[in-house]
């Protein structure tokens, strides 16, 4: 950790020495970064640092080979409706131990714009401190809260923790399911992630267990330190249920511009997984400088009969969002759902949607996508519905709505539809609307300010998605949308 950035105050020193524990890191601080570049040696080093078993190293190396082949033969994928400069993948450092951020003495030192956003989102002072790297009062020991939850979960046989822990403590589960939904060479970014992933979350819900709480509080605590290449694996065994919340409404800043995460979900017979995301990474400034490039591969396999996977996402951050949470409906009578709100403001670009691959009989899928474009933002829905020949009597309903705010933004829809039997039905509805002067005038005339009126219109537009979110998350999401779109109307 660089001393020059940090005033050597007692609090800072204490933090520097106790910090690793607080966030549960086990890595040594002095050896925190490898030089830029990616080759087999770097992958070996990452694996060694994490004390990984041989099989995982080999898995990573195969992924690296796959990535190198994709890079050589096809290069970085450019089919999405996104414009961004070429990324020099050899200029990135692929391993850095979680660094302690420069210590701040008080919230007064935090960027006022960031604080403003925190206040509007109603985030508590203690949490604000934690998120912005201000030394936290010892009384507010978030880790101990998390530990309490973990004890309760483990009584029920639920395994929930970091991916690294799972590799060491439950290798049989990791080995069985890792890459079984998103194969290592699935796509360019997934292959990159598979080779170099840092850490992430792992959850296993045993047979017949209904997870008694949203797996959220714990995750929120970790959210501030998730790495650039995050890996998540969730397994719901037969007849189990879990609701998982990822992300946080608070604005997240990260010096790493490229993010490439992979999330794999597996639902066995009669199991249900509900996966909710709020993504609010740094979107760049108003001129489009900076901001995260977010290339995410999320996929769930409804492997068992009557299993169900439901994705709900609220995407408001990042300069570039490339993300298609998908469901493979293998089991007969399985159900896939995708509910999405994606917002692009200023110069943000999003190309997001889903894939519903129907393989089993009587499988059903629902897609509700709400794209909001403001400023000069570009918002693309891209979705594939594939109903295979064997997937008789299957159904899909898709609804893609776009809302435009102002006249410099864009909304685009690319549905890909492929139905290979005659007993299935598919419906696709799409609409594009503009926040009209008529709507604003009407609400203004009833006494509502333009800000409240536009927030009401936008939240109404997103209602079908928000109602899928757990209650507390939904309230936060509404506030987040208002903050994100602030100043774009009127």
């Amino acid at each position: 950790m660089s001393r020059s950035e940090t005033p050597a105050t007692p609090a800072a020193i204490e933090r520097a020495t106790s910090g690793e524990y607080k966030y549960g890191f086990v890595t040594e601080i002095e050896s925190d970064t490898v030089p830029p570049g990616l080759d087999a040696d770097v992958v070996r080093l990452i694996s060694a640092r994490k004390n990984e078993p041989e099989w995982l190293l080999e898995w990573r190396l195969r992924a690296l080979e796959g990535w190198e082949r994709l890079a050589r033969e096809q290069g970085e994928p450019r089919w999405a409706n996104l414009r961004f400069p070429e990324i020099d993948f050899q200029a990135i450092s692929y391993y850095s131990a979680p660094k302690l951020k420069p210590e701040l003495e008080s919230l007064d030192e935090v960027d006022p714009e960031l604080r403003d956003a925190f206040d509007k989102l109603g985030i508590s002072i203690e949490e604000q401190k934690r998120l912005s790297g201000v030394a936290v009062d010892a009384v507010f020991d978030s880790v101990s809260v998390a530990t309490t939850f973990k004890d309760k979960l483990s009584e029920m046989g639920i395994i929930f923790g970091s991916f690294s822990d799972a590799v060491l403590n439950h290798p049989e589960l990791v080995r069985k399911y890792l890459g079984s939904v998103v194969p290592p060479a699935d796509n360019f970014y997934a292959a990159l992630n598979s080779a170099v992933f840092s850490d992430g979350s792992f959850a296993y819900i045993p047979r017949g267990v209904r997870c008694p709480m949203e797996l959220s509080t714990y995750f929120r605590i970790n959210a501030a330190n998730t790495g650039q290449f995050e890996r998540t694996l969730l397994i719901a065994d037969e007849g189990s249920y879990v609701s998982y919340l990822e992300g946080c409404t608070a604005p997240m800043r990260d010096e790493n511009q490229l993010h490439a995460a992979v999330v794999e979900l597996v639902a066995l017979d009669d199991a249900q997984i509900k996966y909710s995301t709020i993504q609010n990474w740094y979107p760049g400034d108003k001129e489009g400088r900076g901001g995260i490039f977010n290339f995410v591969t999320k996929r769930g396999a409804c492997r068992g009969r009557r299993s169900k996977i439901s994705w709900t996402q609220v995407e408001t951050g990042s300069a570039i969002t490339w993300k298609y949470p998908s469901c493979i409906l293998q089991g007969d009578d399985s159900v896939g759902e995708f509910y999405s709100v994606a917002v692009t403001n200023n110069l943000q670009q999003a190309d997001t949607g889903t894939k519903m691959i129907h393989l089993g009989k009587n499988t059903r899928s629902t897609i509700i996508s709400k794209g909001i474009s403001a400023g000069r933002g570009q918002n693309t829905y891209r979705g594939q519905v594939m109903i295979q020949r064997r997937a008789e009597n299957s159904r899909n309903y898709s609804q893609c709505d776009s809302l435009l705010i102002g006249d410099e933004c864009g909304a685009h829809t690319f549905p890909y539809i492929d139905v290979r039997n005659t007993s299935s039905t598919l419906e696709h509805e799409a609409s594009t609307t503009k926040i009209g002067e008529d709507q604003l005038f009407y609400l203004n005339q009833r006494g509502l300010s333009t800000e409240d009126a536009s927030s009401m219109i936008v939240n109404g537009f997103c209602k079908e998605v928000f109602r899928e979110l757990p209650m507390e998350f939904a309230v936060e999401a509404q506030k987040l949308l208002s903050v994100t779109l602030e100043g774009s109307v009127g």
Partner: protein
Amino acid sequence: MAGQPLLELRKLRARVEGKEILKGIDLRVEEGETHAVMGPNGSGKSTLANVIAGREGYELEGEILFRGRNLLELPIEERAREGVFMAFQYPVEIPGVTNSYFLKAALNAVRKHRGEQELDAIDFLGLVREQAKLLGIDASFLDRPLNEGFSGGEKKRNEVLQMAVLNPRLAILDETDSGLDIDALRIVAAGINARWRQDGAVVVITHYQRLLNFLVPDFTHVLIDGRIVRSGDRGLAEELEERGYGWLEDEAASGESSRP
């Protein structure tokens, strides 16, 4: 009546893209009065309502005084909170926002402006259900998205419900009778009459006289080609019903417009 009028228009002119729609309107509305503004299509009736409410897109001259304040200096929502209400000719649909959620937000914006305590969900529901009942509106109406999928008549009744709940000082009803059948018209008019406050006023903008059978105006004004060409009492409205607007249009065209 002594003191300032509730609403006073002075030499009000409105232009859209260089075209003059209102060509100098003078009008005084006192507390307790009901005025009818009638006229053929395209005469500027809706523009008059929109301009008072504050819709943007007009070049304006003249003054609109509401209880002595110049409304032209106030944004739309401030005018609304001061007590100006317009029932829209074409109420706007807001998908995903329930009628009651919207109306509670609107009412509390107005109450806050007046320095009154905001109503909580229970008190609000009590108030709005009572008003809905008076207007013959089913309670399920309140949980539907604002105007979305409403029939023409339902939208108009919803406008009157909003008016009843917000309890404004000045209500401008822009063609509220269109789309209503005779029974609905009677209920709506009764709702307005029953609810109406003594210190308030109603301006009914209409093409036809039929609403005026139920909502009896103290004054009738005829608007033709952006000017009030004649003002009178309720008898004028009846005369228009019999004779149409032709004779007044002819007079206006020959430049002999008269004013009492």
